[in-house]
């Protein structure tokens, strides 16, 4: 009998449940992106703990990380979007102990101005019209089901786009959004795009619409929320941001409930950077299943979702458990962070 363990996939923001790990090697039920995500985590890991490039024991690395954090005048904690709520909470414990700034990777400016209408994944099936706004879910979120008539606006890869495609003649999507808003509201506006006019008509006529996007730009997000607000009195319209990282929503959520705000810093200089998982910054301390090699302290932990359990908030905010279908003798990043917090406290 082959062994079968339950798993949740962390390959994208959908956090698909119901994956079966057969004999510790085959991931039945995962998409290509998911299979890759699991496979990466089965590769040999770097040594558990390194300080300044040299292998050491965990205690010494924890001490070194603690010293670096204590010595820092302006510490930053970042990464966080690919790990569990448990690890995010532990990271916040560290931040509170030393007064570190936390970068959740989120920007809620547009949300603060207008709010948003959103839904959990299961609600998207009510849509009679699904508009994919400048995104490519087939590549980034392969298991995302689109419902009703599908229109993809300005797809990053036109060849593979789902449903009808509306190209944006204007190079600026924000301009296009404002034109669309005017058309939806019946305001006279210069518009040379019959496709945009047709889209406005469909939006006006749809009783139930889902708008999927991955807008990170403030003005673009604001335009989308404003469009939704314009349409909301006449149509049930919900949006979903197609976050890629499996717990990007959780990073935002944990920061909000712990501190009352969700956003990362707007610029700033930091003399010590602790990364939990991958980051674009250059970390001083790196904690994760595959820590950054050039960090002064690098701790390679058990991988959440394969070797370590916990839970995440998938892209729609729904909490989903990750499991540990395979054994590991390494600690999880949540445990490592808690140990550092304990040393600081």
């Amino acid at each position, binding site marked *: 009998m082959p062994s079968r363990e*339950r798993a*949740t996939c962390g390959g994208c923001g959908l956090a698909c*449940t*119901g994956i079966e790990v057969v004999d510790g090697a085959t991931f039945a039920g995962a998409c290509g992106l998911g299979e890759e995500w699991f496979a990466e985590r089965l590769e040999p890991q770097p040594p558990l703990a390194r300080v300044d490039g040299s292998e050491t024991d965990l205690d010494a690395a924890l001490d070194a990380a603690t010293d670096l954090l204590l010595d820092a005048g302006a510490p930053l904690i970042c990464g966080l979007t690919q790990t569990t*709520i*448990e690890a995010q*909470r532990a990271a916040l414990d560290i931040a509170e102990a030393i007064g570190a700034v936390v970068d959740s990777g989120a920007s*809620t400016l547009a*949300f*603060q*101005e*207008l*709010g*948003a*209408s*959103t*839904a*959990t*994944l*299961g*609600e998207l099936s*009510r849509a009679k019209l699904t508009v994919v706004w400048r995104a490519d879910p087939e590549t980034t979120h392969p298991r995302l089901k689109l419902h009703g008539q599908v229109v993809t606006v300005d797809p990053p890869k036109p060849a593979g786009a789902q449903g009808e495609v509306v190209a944006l003649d204007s190079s600026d999507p924000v301009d296009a959004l404002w034109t669309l808003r005017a058309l939806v509201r019946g305001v006279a506006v210069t518009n040379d795009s019959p496709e945009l006019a047709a889209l406005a008509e469909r939006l006006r006529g749809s*009783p*139930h619409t889902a708008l999927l996007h991955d807008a990170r730009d403030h003005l673009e997000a604001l335009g989308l929320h404003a469009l939704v*607000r314009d349409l*909301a*009195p006449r*149509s*049930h319209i*919900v949006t979903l941001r197609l976050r890629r990282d499996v717990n990007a929503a959780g990073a*935002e*959520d*944990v920061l*909000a*409930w*712990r*501190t*009352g*705000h*969700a*956003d990362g810093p707007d610029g700033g200089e930091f003399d010590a950077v602790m990364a939990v998982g991958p980051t674009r910054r250059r970390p001083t301390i790196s904690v994760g299943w595959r820590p950054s090699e050039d960090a002064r302290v690098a701790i390679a932990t058990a991988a959440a979702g394969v070797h370590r*359990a916990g*839970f995440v*908030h998938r892209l729609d*905010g*729904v*909490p*989903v*458990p990750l499991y540990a279908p395979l054994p590991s003798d390494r600690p999880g990043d949540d445990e490592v962070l808690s140990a550092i917090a304990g040393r600081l406290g």
Partner: protein
Amino acid sequence: MSLRIAGGAVYDPANGVDGEARDVCIDGGSVVAELPDSAPRIDARGMVVMPGGVDIHAHIAGPKVNLARKLQPGDPIVPPAPETGERYALLGYTTVIEAAAPPLAARHVLAELRDTPMIDAALLILLGNNVMLFDLLKRDPARLRDAIAWWLESTGGYGVKIVNPCGVERWKAANGNVSSLDDEVLDVTPRRVIEGIATAVTELGLPHPVHVHCNNLGVAGNADTTLDTLRTLEGRRAHLAHLQFHAYGGDPGGRPRSRAPELAEYLGAHPEISADVGQVMFGDAVTMTADAPVSAMLRDVTGNPWVNHDTEVETGCGIVPFAYKERNYVHALQWGIGLELFLLSRDPWRLVLSTDHPNGGSFLSYPKLIRLLMDREFRNEQIKRANKRAIRATVLLDDLDREYTMSEIAIVTRAGPARLLGMMQKGHLGVGADADVTVYDDKPDREEMFALPRYVVKGGRVVVRDGELVERVEGSLLRSAPQFDDAIAGVLERDWRYSIGFRDYPVNEPWLLEPARRVG
């Protein structure tokens, strides 16, 4: 830790103690009969001693509270989780009910509660628009009881909340709502949902009866719906949430008036029914509710930022920041109706204090509300400042000169809610009760008095001293313990409609569920 709180005027209405000078002895987290003279003591002579406060209906944790934080960063009305616990403790409250937890988001709600220190907390889970329960109601109503118990057990829940039954489902389907108890949605009606769930909760013997947010919240004339709901519930125990928001006369779409006297009368005559008031307080608030169609209405009325979040299978969510203005007719009427309900209440044990935090105003406004109830002169001054037409539409000017006694305040803020919740160890100071105690200076300005307790003891630890937080303690999750037939799991798994797997849905992470205490 043992402690004698010596010589204070003790208000412990559950045990018939009405301001007598007594010692309260606590040891190991509970109230005890006696302690050796050598035990540490607090000299409480000249002070007022009460059990710790119990908030029967507030929104303090979970997705909607957190969305409100993100919408208005730094807004003191929706403080971060740690500060929420601390602020409650600083007001002498030691137990708080999160009154609208979406079961699907239970892990999130529980994780936030783990970061909310100082208070014991319990969840009421949202089941009134759950389409799987609708199916059972049609197909196999006898199973409803087991299904509800399964949901409670799977979420760490304490009790069951119904919010605008069927109306939220119709909102998610088509921006709609229901307007009467007999509107059909997916072949059930609000009446059938209310009856079915209330009966099931009664049969399960849960410590708290079904907690109902009626249909038509905020709509002029909704008192008819509220009375229809009450008649539908008749004979069964039930708790009505924020009754003030459901006590309006007039015609839908028109100018509301007060029907508080009628509802107070009904409540007085029906001992199986209880309610919390849902007082509005002038100033800033944040409306947040599972009743999403109401939020859409507030969006259109205010033009303010608006959040809508459709939660599959079971519920919705709406958020709109709001401000109640004393010169505004509707707001002043709402304020007046809340006070009418309090002042006409025949039984403080069954009509208890809430602002539906933060919908009617923050829990931080409780001390002011207490002063409005205890201090007629202060109240009359405030009444003079409010919209005159609104006040004339109430009976507040008709010799309603009642002043709540200290004992009645102890009832509506702790003894009553604890009894209605079936929490036998809360809300009183008898032997065996939890050692949650609040000591106030007996100041003539009751707002000042209740805003700044002298001491707060939580689980036997002194956590507030001279108005300052001196120790951070973790609270417990309070859960119910319903018995049910495990076979329900197979039924639910077969008809599972969520986007997350059946086996992934129940919360089983120990850190989310411990420490917990089972009640009932």
